[in-house]
């Protein structure tokens, strides 16, 4: 339930970002095209139920992420998981200024959220905002792609489609970034021309620029596009802008406190684990680790190759191991694990390495699947124990080893 919720919310967010980026791609041609196509791209997302769904997803997804961070047993993980975690923590602080600029700017200050206006701000007035935005785009896209592909690669049809999807995953953000740059440079040249000609059309209007000059240094987005329909008086404008800014910083601070709190809670949860477990693999490899992480996490920490297509989410079953002998008490199989094991029709001594955490003691086990197992062989394998599924080379030695121990 929680996992599928996380996936669904993530998918919604990813879909939104993809449309947004596709829109931005048009900036390569001209700002006008970018601006005029905007309503078509956003028409779906601004309708009431979808917008609500989007907001819900935006709330749920980070919270679920923090929850899984709390339940994470170790912070020493594979490179991809590290990237995923760090990018997820970076997204919110990077996103909040953008959200506030769009939503609060529109609702309170009455600034229309147009590309023209924001591009001018990001390229001329507040280049730091532009930098933040580019960073946000990159981080979000990386995070989204990792999540999406980790989920998709377990699908039966994925290996056939993947080679055509992967280029898209690179092309979309690249083109969007180029669109952002092209449109921005266009804005800059127009601005410079206008300035040379004595008018100031793009960016913040000259009047506001003069009046609120001091505000530009500490606030981020109080400004309008060319057609800023400022209904508020300049004083009110300044005051509400300042208020928005304060709220924004408070939200960011709150987020940081939340993250720190999660880490603290996790630390308290894991404090009790200080005992050692020793793992003997069937091929003779022996590693030892502190108690707490799952078998898969221990393997990754010690550079032991171990199949894990779903990155330890308990969805693929490729990490299953046969427990030959164990003097440590492994954690009781969760419902998720039991369901997966039942589906695979595994014998009783089989466990999922990504779910089973060993207690202190010695565990003798055998990795049932080779570490280079590919998603294609997963499906025949799961259904009828297909012969093309590569078993580990240790299989022959396991019997001997099993007798010996």
């Amino acid at each position, binding site marked *: 339930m929680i996992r599928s919720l996380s996936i669904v919310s993530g998918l919604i967010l990813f879909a939104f970002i993809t449309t947004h980026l596709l829109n931005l791609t048009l900036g390569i041609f001209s700002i006008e095209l970018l601006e005029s196509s905007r309503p078509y791209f956003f028409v779906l997302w601004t309708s009431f139920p979808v917008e609500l769904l989007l907001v819900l997803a935006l709330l749920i997804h980070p919270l679920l992420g923090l929850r899984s961070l709390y339940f994470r047993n170790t912070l020493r993980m594979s490179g991809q998981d590290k990237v995923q975690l760090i990018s997820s923590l970076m997204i919110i602080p990077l996103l909040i200024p953008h959200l506030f600029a769009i939503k609060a700017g529109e609702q309170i200050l009455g600034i229309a959220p147009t590309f023209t206006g924001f591009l001018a701000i990001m*390229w*001329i007035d507040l*280049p*730091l905002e*532009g*930098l933040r935005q*580019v*960073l946000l785009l*990159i981080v979000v896209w990386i995070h989204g792609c990792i999540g999406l592909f980790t989920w998709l690669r377990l699908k039966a049809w994925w290996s056939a489609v*993947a*080679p055509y999807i*992967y*280029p898209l*995953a*690179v092309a979309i*953000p*690249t083109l969007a*970034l*180029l669109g952002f*740059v092209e449109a921005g440079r266009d804005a800059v040249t127009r601005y410079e021309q206008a300035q040379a000609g004595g008018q100031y059309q793009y960016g913040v209007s000259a009047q506001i620029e003069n009046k609120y000059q001091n505000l530009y240094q500490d606030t981020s987005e109080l400004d309008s596009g060319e057609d800023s329909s400022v209904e508020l008086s300049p004083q009110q404008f300044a005051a509400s802008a300042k208020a928005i800014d304060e709220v924004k910083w408070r939200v960011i601070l709150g987020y940081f406190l939340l993250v720190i709190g999660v880490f603290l809670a996790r630390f308290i949860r894991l404090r009790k684990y200080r005992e050692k477990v020793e793992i003997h693999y069937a091929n003779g490899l022996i590693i030892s680790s502190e108690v707490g992480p799952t078998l898969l996490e221990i393997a990754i920490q010690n*550079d032991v*190759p171990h199949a894990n297509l779903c990155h330890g989410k308990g969805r693929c079953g490729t990490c299953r191991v046969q427990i030959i002998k164990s003097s440590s008490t492994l954690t009781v199989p969760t419902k998720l694990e039991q369901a997966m094991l039942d589906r695979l029709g595994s014998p009783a001594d089989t466990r999922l390495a990504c779910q089973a955490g060993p207690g202190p003691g010695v565990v003798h086990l055998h990795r049932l699947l*080779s*570490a*280079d197992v*590919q998603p294609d062989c997963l499906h025949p394998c799961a259904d009828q124990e297909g012969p093309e599924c590569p078993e580990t080379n240790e299989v022959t030695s396991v019997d001997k080893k099993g007798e010996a121990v």
Partner: protein
Amino acid sequence: MIYKTIFRQWFVIISVVFVSLLSINNSYAAQQSILDPQVASLPSTEIEDFKRLLADPKVQDWLQQSMPATDAEQNFDQQQGFRESFGLLLQQIRERKLALIVAWDQAAQAPAMIVQKWQSQMSTTETLRAIIYILIFLFVGAGLEWLYAQYSGYKLLQLELRKPQSLKSRVQTAFYRALLTFAGLFFFALGSIGVFLSFNWPSLVEYLVLEILIVILTVRLGTTVTRFFLAPKLKELRLVPLSGAQAKRVHFWAGVMIFIMALNMAVATVFDQLIKDVPGGVLSHSALSINLINNLVLMLVAQFALWRIYLLFNTHADGSGNRAICKFWTLYFSFMFTVIYVLWTIDTPVLMKSLIIIGLLIPLTHLFRNWINYLFDQAEHKYQHVRQHLIEQRSAANAEPSADAKPSADGKPSADQEANSEQDEDEDEESAVHPYQNYRPIARRLMRFVLVVIAIFSLAIVWGHNLFALSSSSSMTAKFFSVSIDIIAALLIADLIWVWAKTYIDKRLADYEPPEEGHAPGPEARMATLLPLLRSMLIVTLISMVVFSVLASLGFNIGPLLAGAGVIGLAIGFGAQTLVKDVVSGIFYLIDDAFRIGEYIEVGDLRGTVESMSVRSLRVRHHRGAVHTIPFGELSAITNHSRDWVIMKLEFRIPFDTNMKLVKKLIKKIGKELLTNEDFGHCFIQPLKSQGVRRMEEFNMVLGVKFMTRPGEQWVIRREAYHKIRDTFEANGIGLAERNVKVQVLNLETLDEPTKQAVAGAAQNTVEQQLPPGPIPDEP
């Protein structure tokens, strides 16, 4: 075992040192190279102007006038004495000292000045935009690489999971892995450089961005290379004898050093660019102080890395000797870092680079020596392992009673190599000497040779001499340099050839087993005579050639020596013509494999068993004991009776009324009986069989019988065959034909007794006139 630890220590240290040293040079190189792009990008109008100027005769005159002047100046520079150049050096150091003092004073203000200068060139907005651009092209590069990884990742994973059995496959796998990683790096470069090129940059930003790109690419390239050797996460692919923790730490510090190095280089370049336009060199000292601090940081980090690595290795080192060695090299490199930094600080690049080269040569030689040892050890270990496995399999399959001999053979391979090469008596032990073993000294020499040559060349480059123009130069140092290069090169090459030939010959000799008593020697016996001779000839030739070339490079005129040697050689050659003929034709007989020791040969009318061969002659013993000594030069056609097989044909004369079917049957039976004989039954190649009637004679038929045996066994078999056939025929009532004369007398009664006697005597005479065949030719 000991050298492994030492080796580890060095490998690490050297990799770190190497990296750090490179960077020190770079700040210089950067200063010089910075001008080139400017030259390349001259606008076309300027080039036109220049061409026009060149066409002007006045300008040409002026150019011609100014040329000799500069030449003379250069000559003067080259020919100045030691005292002048030393004075110049001191003067240079003094100036540098002043500059350093100013730089030190300015160090505090330098950042502020540079920031100011920066801002005058680039606004904050531009800086931020530059960062955006950089982010974008890094993202694109990384994206392309990720894409590549999606397609190649499975292959890479397979490679990493493969457990290479032999050294060759280990190197291969590591190589493929590095190749795959390099391809990824290439895609990264493609993406990032592509996007970099698609933007228009302000000049300063372009330099900055380019430098950042170079830093990133350098670091990634460097770490890929260190990963190729260290494989910190994959024990199976590691090419150096380090534990996982050691490899990780070394990899980390190597990465750090590469990063700092690249960064220093980039900073120096950017600063040079920054201060280029400033009039009056206001900022030059700021740049110097920045460089000073950067390189100080580099030096300190290098020292720290050294210390960290030392700590890790020291705990792993076993034995006090290893610890001392560990300590020694750590101190050595630490000292070297410091001296190099000091030399850099006082601006004496030539001295510094020479020190680097010489200081690195010794540890590098040891390092590579140990590495080669390690690689050979690994290869041999693997070989022994496989062999042992095979033996086990074989013994398990055969389950022979000699199984008790096997464990000893199995236990020994793990022993030291020297011990192994001495255990020649057992067949198994003999083959336990690894085939690579003989290449070990050659590899070592070759490595040393290459290293020394590289060092010499780099020294020559550092000292600013063209190695190939040295001999024509007249200065003392150049002469000394060129002479020593000649001598060293001659010695090294001769040494290399000698070691190669010696190991080859020694291996062949070691492989040679003297034949057991009563057995014919194998084909390798012939070379056993020849190889020691070849070896001594080679060493004499090599020594004389080296002596000649050393003398020649020292300036002696070796023409008369050579001529004298030639004349003497000619005289001796004439005198010893036949001797030479004997030796040379002996070599060719040996190569032809015309005869071996123990074979029965026939040369002209001499025959006998080959007893021994000397360089000049062949000793053959006749089966009756006489010994013939035949010079090789006298040998012409040789008949060898001891090769492969022999056919023996026997003939029997039987009466015309013999039942041939019975004869055939009987012979067949005898053939079978002979085959089962204990003494010589196994020597038959084809059994005894009848050939039927070969021809008809006046009084009898000739029955042919033949058999094929191994050479040398035919005589005994023939004796036994005759014996059996005679006995069998007799038992079956077949008589062998005897010579008899029928005298038909028409009127017998009329003859009296004496006449009868006379007739019988005449008939007897007639028979005896037809002489029986002579004695069979002499046989052993």
